[in-house]
């Protein structure tokens, strides 16, 4: 099992979800983060004083999947999130040792979906 963390542009969330649905990946956890990346930050003006802020608003997805789904998930996220420009985001894949469904107590691959 793998734990996939993806950082994407905020307005791409719907597109990514649609692509994931196509791949039958329906479960995920979503949160708002700010990201500091290669992407040039945004200019902000505060009472006539200008400065550059390199923390950009992003969306973070966390998706636990069985091995068989890893590449499909990566591909789906990439399809949904890509604008072919710096700032599109990253996908990180971490090894997942155990997964427990709280309601049933099921464990492992059975609990993931």
């Amino acid at each position: 099992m793998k734990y996939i963390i993806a950082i994407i542009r905020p307005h791409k969330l719907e597109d990514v979800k649609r692509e994931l649905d196509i791949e039958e990946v329906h479960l995920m956890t979503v949160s708002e983060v700010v990201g500091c990346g290669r992407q040039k930050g945004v200019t902000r003006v505060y009472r006539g004083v200008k400065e550059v802020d390199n923390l950009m608003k992003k969306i973070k997805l966390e998706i636990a999947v069985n091995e068989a789904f890893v590449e499909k998930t990566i591909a789906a996220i990439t399809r949904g999130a890509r604008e072919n420009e710096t700032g599109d985001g990253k996908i990180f894949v971490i090894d997942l040792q155990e997964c427990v469904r709280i309601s049933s107590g099921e464990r492992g691959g059975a609990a993931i979906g």
Partner: protein
Amino acid sequence: MNAGDTAWVLASTALVLLMTPGLAFFYGGLVRKKNVLSVLMQCFFLICLISLQWVLFGYSLAFGPTRGGVIGGLDWAGLRGVGAAPFADYAGTIPHQLFMAFQMMFAIITPALMIGAFAERIRFSGFMVLMILWSTLIYDPLAHWVWGNGGWLKNLGTLDFAGGTVVPVKAGVAALVVAVLIGKREGIRSPRSPHNLPFCVLGAGLLWFGWFGFNAGSALAANGSAVGAFVTTNTAAAAAGLAWMVLDWWFNEIPTMLGVVTGLVAGLVAITPAAGFVSPLSAIAIGTGAGAICFYMVTKVKAALGYDDALDVFGVHGVGGVFGALATGLFAEKSIGGADGLFFGNPRQFLIQLLATGVTIVFTAAGTYILFNLVDLLVGIRVDVKEETMGLDLSQHHESGYTLVD
């Protein structure tokens, strides 16, 4: 001059000024987080802009000595001759300058109402130019026709207590035209949840509060007519809020907060032209009708037609305003405001209302269409996709409404 009347119209003018910040929050709460400032900014820009335009030449165009019933002359530009003495043709018991200031607030809120239609996708520079032109070339003439001394629609005998024709109909129609021409928002397939519904409710509360100045202040005196308008205003808003609530319950199993505030605003809009002419019981009818018709427009007709009037300016203000203007021709009572409507035996009044509303719609639609295309050509009205997805706050103003981490 009467100090009591002056006191009430001073207070009313302040109340109507407050409506535009109220509207800013009513709209601002509904958009997505990344666009909240753009809405507030547009509202405050209009307060500043029209405040100057009106003093410099707008008031004179709208209310100055008529040139053939079509437009006011520039005799009063820079408020020349508009001073502390009353001008009896408009208001005999308050300073002329106060009448000017009261009308100014109307000239501010009318274009502000349109903001909801093209929210989340308009370029600020294009917006500015469009608004300057629209206020001068559309609002001021129309105001002259309906309210100006010698204005041709006024001469016809149109009833419009507090500007229900001039203000919401005009704003609503223009909003529809702009919404259609500017096109749909990017990637909005279904309605987006309001980012801060309490702000929207706050705005609705301030609107209700301020609308007492709008309608009861339109009596231009602290008298029975002002009181009557006050009561019908409150009653119609309440009836429309409840009407929407009941329909929400009927069609969606549950009453919603956004429904109630949308409904009550529709009721306030609809009662505006009728406020001083109808009885409280007629106000219940007008409010209920407005709530129901606007509900139908927003939930059914809009979906069917598929234009993206982001915050339902046309569905609520335009439709509510037209309904109110016509309803005035139905429910007016001579014993209350001096003229009878259809239901009280005077069908002619209804026809006049129909004509005035029709003229307003046609003139506004055509004028807005021309101005939009002109400004789009010269300045560009729509932001590009990048700016839109980034949000107007960052792209148009280099600011964010809220900090994410601080």
